[in-house]
């Protein structure tokens, strides 16, 4: 009896927490032009953006081992408190206009996934996942982004990584 009560108490506590700790504002609903699963720790997402802001490829890489293990907590906690943000290792490739040739590569960066507002926050830009629009952090429109399929994205990211672009030239980080 004591055991059943203990199990029931653990479940009740969990369900209780679930009920009272959800964010009060509604989440931006789908369908999304850029759908990035926030709990996938080994997915490589490649976003290709173009417009007045030039051309850039954002490679959101798989997480490190520690972050992969931490997804156990993320998975559990999503029942108590929905995941509102996630972080991914990021490499930015600035492309020569109209080509797939990288002019610059900026690695060791981090992208923040705003899961609630459905935005990808980059070092100097923001991508709206609902529409795919590409904005500067100041809110100026830069263009639009396309979420490449996994196969195309992986192929492009490998090509870009192998291209060894020239040393960083002066210019803003997109």
């Amino acid at each position, binding site marked *: 009896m004591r055991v*059943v009560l203990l*199990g029931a108490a653990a*479940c009740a506590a*969990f369900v209780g927490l679930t009920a009272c700790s959800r964010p009060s504002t509604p989440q931006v609903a789908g369908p999304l032009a850029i759908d990035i699963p926030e709990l996938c720790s080994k997915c490589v997402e490649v976003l290709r953006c173009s417009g007045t802001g030039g051309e850039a490829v954002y490679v959101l890489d798989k997480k490190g081992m520690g972050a992969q293990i931490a997804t*156990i907590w993320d998975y559990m906690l999503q029942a108590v408190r929905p995941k509102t943000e996630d972080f991914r290792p990021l490499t930015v490739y600035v492309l020569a206009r109209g080509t797939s040739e990288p002019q610059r590569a900026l690695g060791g960066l981090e992208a923040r996934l705003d899961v609630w507002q459905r935005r990808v926050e980059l070092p100097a830009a923001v991508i709206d996942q609902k529409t795919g629009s590409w904005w500067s952090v100041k809110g100026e429109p830069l263009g639009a982004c396309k979420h490449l399929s996994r196969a195309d994205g992986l192929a492009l990211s490998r090509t870009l990584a192998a291209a060894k672009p020239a040393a960083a030239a002066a210019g803003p980080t997109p």
Partner: protein
Amino acid sequence: MMRKLGIGLLVTLRLLYGLFYVVSATNKIQRNYMFSDYPLKVFTKQMTVIDPDGLPAAYLGKVIIPNYQLFGWGITLGVIAVATGLLLGLCTRWAALLAIFISINIGLGGFYDASLIVLIALAVLLVIFPAGHHFGLDKRLHRRHPQSIWFR
């Protein structure tokens, strides 16, 4: 003192692991894994992510996808059984073994990352140590049925 601490940690691990599977079971039920083609969509999408020449692709393509409904049922009932067993301390070692089996299948399907190694290692602890004999039904049932392999 150390023994009590060990037992406390073991029971905590068992309950947390059980809660993890409660979340998993809730997810499977909410997404209707048993009565819809949702698992087929998940498995098909996974095929586009993994190496088409690897073992996971062969396992997904030749075993899981053709039998997606069976796997939908198996996964859902499996996670419910693990959650129930671990939370109540009922057939605990078997529940942990089932958790290992499920984890290995998840890995074989290509849904693996480093967290799977940790989950399997923790489940192995629950197979090795009699976690259900503390604050669990296994203790009482083992007394009543000492020959049974289910409550050890």
